């Protein structure tokens, strides 16, 4: 395991007027990340994802718990941890009046790399991230996507073993976002372990080999996207029907033995079943027998949002 944490904790004291309040941002996180995987940290804003990431990057000190990164203890030897990790912050890391080349050279040299080697690596990174054309222009002239590529190039200029990406695609347009996914996959191909946070379900699903779902400072689920979806739910049959029929339909279907779990909303009944295809005929028969008309019936494989809903009791889109 390249990252291992046990019971990692952090709380902050926030002050509202005269009142002091302790906010437990991270309440004991146990994690294992294998070498060479893209590991995602999924959760709503304020779940403690960024705080956990910043602890692992040595930017803030944990209140309790242990962590090792590439075999080095985070608490005992943060200086050594810094040498093997790269960090790409959410809000960017470049200075308006500097050029990409200057930033890359400086950053490499901060890792103790010689001037000549730093220039060589900067040139290499500029090529790899299609930035060569703008290399000597000031960062303030770059587009959002270009600037984000500089951030990533900065994060890996010293060839770290682990790269931490904090919400790498937040605020990017769909096209830049797709490019970014490609860049992240490239990092894995280069042999790096990628640890990223996101609040996009599709991103976690498409990009991550494994992920952990975080809510209120705790990890509520962990596994591959497929495992997570399987483990919790099986399939979902979504029946939409006139609102005055919802209560009756729910009552009727709740007793059926093939329904594992049932949820209602204003105009729909959501059924969690083992095998969706096998469940649809009996559902239809039951509703027909009770003379309850319906608008539609849909079968879908559960999404990560369903996982989130099942684990936390609310939808990620709402939180």
């Amino acid at each position, binding site marked *: 395991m390249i990252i291992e944490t046990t019971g990692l904790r952090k709380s*902050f004291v926030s002050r509202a007027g005269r009142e002091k309040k302790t906010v437990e941002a991270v309440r004991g996180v146990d994690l294992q990340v294998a070498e060479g995987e893209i590991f995602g940290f999924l959760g709503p804003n304020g779940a403690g994802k960024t705080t956990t990431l910043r602890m692992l*990057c*040595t*930017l*803030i*000190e944990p209140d309790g718990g242990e962590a090792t990164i590439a075999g080095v203890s985070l608490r005992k030897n943060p*200086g050594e941890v*810094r*040498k093997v*990790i*790269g*960090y790409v*912050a959410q*809000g*960017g*890391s*470049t*200075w*308006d*009046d*500097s050029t990409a080349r*200057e930033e890359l050279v*400086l*950053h490499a*040299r*901060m*890792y*103790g790399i010689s001037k000549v080697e730093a220039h060589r690596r900067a040139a290499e990174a500029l090529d790899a991230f299609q930035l060569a054309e703008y290399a000597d222009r000031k960062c303030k002239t770059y587009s959002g996507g270009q600037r984000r590529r500089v951030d990533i190039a*900065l994060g890996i200029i*010293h060839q770290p073993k682990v790269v931490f990406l904090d919400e790498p695609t937040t605020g990017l347009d769909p096209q830049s976002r797709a490019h970014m996914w490609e860049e992240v996959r490239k990092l894995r191909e280069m042999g790096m372990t990628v640890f990223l946070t996101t609040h996009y379900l599709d991103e976690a699903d498409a990009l991550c080999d494994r992920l952990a779902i975080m809510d209120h400072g705790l990890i509520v689920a962990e596994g591959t996207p497929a495992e997570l979806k399987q483990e919790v739910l099986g399939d979902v049959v979504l029946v939409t029907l006139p609102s005055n029929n919802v209560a009756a339909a729910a009552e009727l279907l709740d007793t059926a033995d093939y329904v594992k779990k049932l949820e209602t909303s204003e105009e729909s009944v959501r059924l969690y079943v083992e095998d969706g295809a096998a469940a649809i005929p009996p559902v239809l028969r039951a509703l027909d027998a009770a003379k309850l008309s319906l608008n539609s019936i849909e079968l879908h494989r559960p999404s990560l949002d369903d996982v989130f809903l099942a684990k936390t009791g609310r939808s990620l889109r709402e939180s």
Partner: protein
Amino acid sequence: MKFLRDTWLVFQRQMLLLLRNPVWVAVGITQPLFYLLLFAPLMTKALGQGQPVSNVTAYKIFVPGMLVMVALFQAFSGFGLIAELRAGVIERSRVTPVSRVALLLGRSMRDVVSLLFQAVLVTVLATAFGLRVGVVDAILAYLLLALMTLMLSSMGYALGLALKSEDALAPMLNTLIQPIMLLSGILLPLYLAPIWLQRVADFNPFSWAVKGVRSTFAGAPGDPSVWKALVIFIPLTMLTVFVSSRAFAKSVR
């Protein structure tokens, strides 16, 4: 070794950016220039209390105060740092193994260099008004000013890191700097002040600094006020640099 290399690295970067945007030179000397032009002429009569003293005497007293004032402005260094915090540059540096003291000193040394440039410029301009000062005396004065700048800019960075917002930093600095300035005899020497005011000013390190710089400009570098200023400022500067580099090492949320 690593610490020196890192400091040089940070200093180089800061100098590069400073030179890329040379507006600071104009901004830095405009205010002293206004004082030289519009305020110093009052001094010839005020200092002699009715009997006008010569321009040379007046400027020898006034210019040193002016230079300390320019040094005091270096306490506003935190504003630039807050911009860097916001851009993520500080955080980016803090995930590297770069020396934390270097992150501070590289920046403070940039401030010292720019202060010295401004101080020389102000001195040269003042010679046009009749100021005369020996080179060795001036160098000793600049040394004192460099020490003060190192302390003030380090303090400014620590405040910037602690407050993280220009809106909080501006009133804080104004309330801090104004009494320091008034109680240091920058505009008028403190021997014109009533005794109680002089005693209060004794607790202000900068009143000693102004006396020290004035002695060097008066051609008396051996005056006790010079070594007293050094004795006060060397430990004070070391302490500030220590506290401030701790702020760079400590978590910044």
